[in-house]
């Protein structure tokens, strides 16, 4: 594995499978009464969050703590960052404190690459602007594997605001690496102009794609987008690209419904779909901790086995 995880493209097929297998192994401890391993004892992980994201932050925090790492949460709000301190100076501060790993969430695409120039520790991208969110893609793949088995040849449909979605970018790259067939569905305004260069299919017609899908992943659509004329109204978007009960019925029997959260119920996904048995939305949250544990372990853990020494010993 590379030293940092910034893009899903950083993972070879073997790397990706190693992360997923390790996550599967680590998921076992979630069922134990003591959910903690000594693996990263003495290591420091900094959660550097320039954007509010309680869900992702606590997921990384839980992952690091279950591996016994020391966790420092550094939120841009109320810190010197909000007073204009540069990313570089923040990075140098963390470096001086000796962070072994930095988990960064930032509103600017590519910020983790910049950070990696200034710190020695491993950088894990927890979402950068409209670029990538690789651990989300890993937890999504982990969830799909648990439900459907091997992803080779599986048909994955990702629906929504692809243009602004870091989740879509990371998923397309990782799922392609894992051999799945990805189809992106959105109104033409919400695709990047060069989407034809991506390793996936593109469709404007959700109803045509659903019957052939093993997985349908709905992306959050921000209502502000209609102000920039990406679509006329939220209702029209919902009618054409929302997943309601009728559309869900068009899916094959075994197909699952995913959403990275937070959801706009009634916009891209109907409440009865989100709460249905096909929905993996809550599972995704639980799996997020396992996937992030695997990433932190593989980047920071060195050669020690992830599981092997019981905590009780």
């Amino acid at each position, binding site marked *: 594995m590379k030293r940092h995880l910034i893009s899903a493209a950083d993972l070879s097929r073997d790397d990706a499978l190693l992360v997923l297998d390790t996550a599967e192994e680590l998921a076992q401890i979630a069922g134990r009464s003591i959910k903690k391993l000594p693996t990263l004892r003495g290591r420091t992980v900094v959660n550097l969050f320039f954007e509010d994201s309680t869900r992702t932050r606590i997921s990384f925090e839980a992952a690091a703590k279950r591996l016994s790492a020391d966790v420092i949460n550094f939120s841009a709000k109320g810190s010197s960052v909000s007073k204009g301190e540069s990313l570089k100076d923040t990075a140098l501060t963390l470096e001086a404190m000796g962070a072994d790993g930095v988990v960064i969430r930032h509103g*600017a695409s590519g910020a983790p690459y910049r950070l990696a120039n200034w710190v020695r520790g491993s950088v894990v991208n927890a979402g950068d602007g409209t670029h990538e969110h690789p651990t989300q893609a890993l937890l999504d793949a982990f969830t799909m594997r648990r439900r459907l088995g091997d992803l080779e040849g599986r048909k994955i449909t990702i629906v929504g605001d692809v243009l602004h979605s*870091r989740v879509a970018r990371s998923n397309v790259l990782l799922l392609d690496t894992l051999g799945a067939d990805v189809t992106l569905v959105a109104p033409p305004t919400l695709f*990047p102009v060069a989407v034809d260069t991506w390793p996936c299919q593109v469709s404007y017609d959700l109803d045509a794609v659903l019957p052939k899908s093993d997985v349908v992943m709905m992306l959050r659509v921000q209502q502000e987008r209609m102000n920039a004329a990406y679509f006329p109204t939220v209702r029209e978007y919902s009618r054409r690209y929302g997943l309601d009960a009728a559309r869900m019925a068009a899916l094959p029997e075994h197909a699952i419904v995913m959403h990275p959260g937070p959801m706009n119920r009634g916009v891209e996904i109907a409440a009865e779909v989100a709460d249905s048995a096909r929905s993996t939305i809550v599972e995704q949250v639980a799996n997020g901790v396992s996937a992030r544990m695997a990433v932190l372990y593989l980047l920071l853990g060195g050669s020690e086995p992830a599981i092997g020494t019981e905590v009780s010993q």
Partner: protein
Amino acid sequence: MTDHLIKGARVLGGDPADLLVRDGRIAEVGTGLDAAGARVVDAAGLVALPGLVDLHTHLREPGREDAETVESGTRAAAKGGYTAVHAMANTDPVADTAGVVEQVWRLGREAGYCDVHPVGAVTRGIAGEQLAELGAMADSAARVRVFSDDGHCVSDAVIMRRALEYVKAFDGVVAQHAQEPRLTEGAQLNEGEMSAALGLRGWPAVAEEAIIARDVLLAQHVGSRLHVCHVSTAGSIDIIRWAKSKGCQVTAEVTPHHLLLTDAAARTYDPIYKVNPPLRTADDVTALRHALADGTIDCVATDHAPHPVEAKETEWAVAAMGMIGLETALSVVQEAMVETDLLDWAGVADRMSFAPARIGRLSGQGRPLEAGSPANITLYDPAPRRRVDPTSMTSKSRNTPFAGLDLPGRVVATFLRGEPTVLEGKLQ
């Protein structure tokens, strides 16, 4: 004033000849010249070019003297072989009055490294709403002939039309920064494969081309001179070529960086490659080189845009746009145009001196290297290759996108009206 006898220079890349420089002028060109008392400059193997002229330089003074001053910028220009630069108007305060342009012009005279011709803003405060006092700037000591809101597009069609018409009274030219503002709100990088992959907001080629198309039609309609700054796309070239074929008085420039680099450089998110207009695709680079060779694009202009380190050591989205270029322009043009056999040295002289001087209506610059011409001369050694080192720049700023690249050539000497500003590669 010391006389100089330049021995054995290949004038515009031709056969070796001697040039006798006396009283600020070229007194004689020939072989085996001799002149008692003249300082001899051995120019064997060097190419003699007319002093380079830049139509597009940001000197940052007044306002951002931390990035560049007229003095530091003109020293950098001399090091790059330039004898005249056009100082862009987007200073603070904006060069939109006779007072500011005269100040910049005077600072250039005092520095003495090369002629500084201030560009006047088209609109007050480059806000795009009301015409600046173009006539006052034209009539000032600075004798402004090039007007530009560079950094901003004169996007209002009526303002652009009026500016084009108005400057006819003093043979001025409007140099347009062609960028449709609504299509480029928050734009970060050429819209295409790279911007899609990197999640950076796209700057579509059409935003440049749509403005150029409008402006050539306006210029044709009112019979005015239009100059297009930093052309960056293949589509823009097609429009300019068409306009020229219809007799439109349009000229265009291309920057060295658009002749050499592509948007693939953004892959690391290092904002050293962030510039406006953005780096484009390899196909655009090829089209720009051919358009410069065939004359559709008239000249090379650096768009030298110094920024302090902290403006570039940031996330891509918040970084300043622009790159320095005065000290590397000739090397980049050699690499992109001469080494590829698209231009010979006579062609380089035209695109980097004769043509820009003509567009800027500079009478004492961009003259042929012959007896009687002002002695603005650049001696250039095309043989050595060197690795570009930002720390060795004369500019106050270090934001060169060519850092680490091996580029050919070296400016050995620059003469400004007979006075060496650079000799043996060193500022005088």
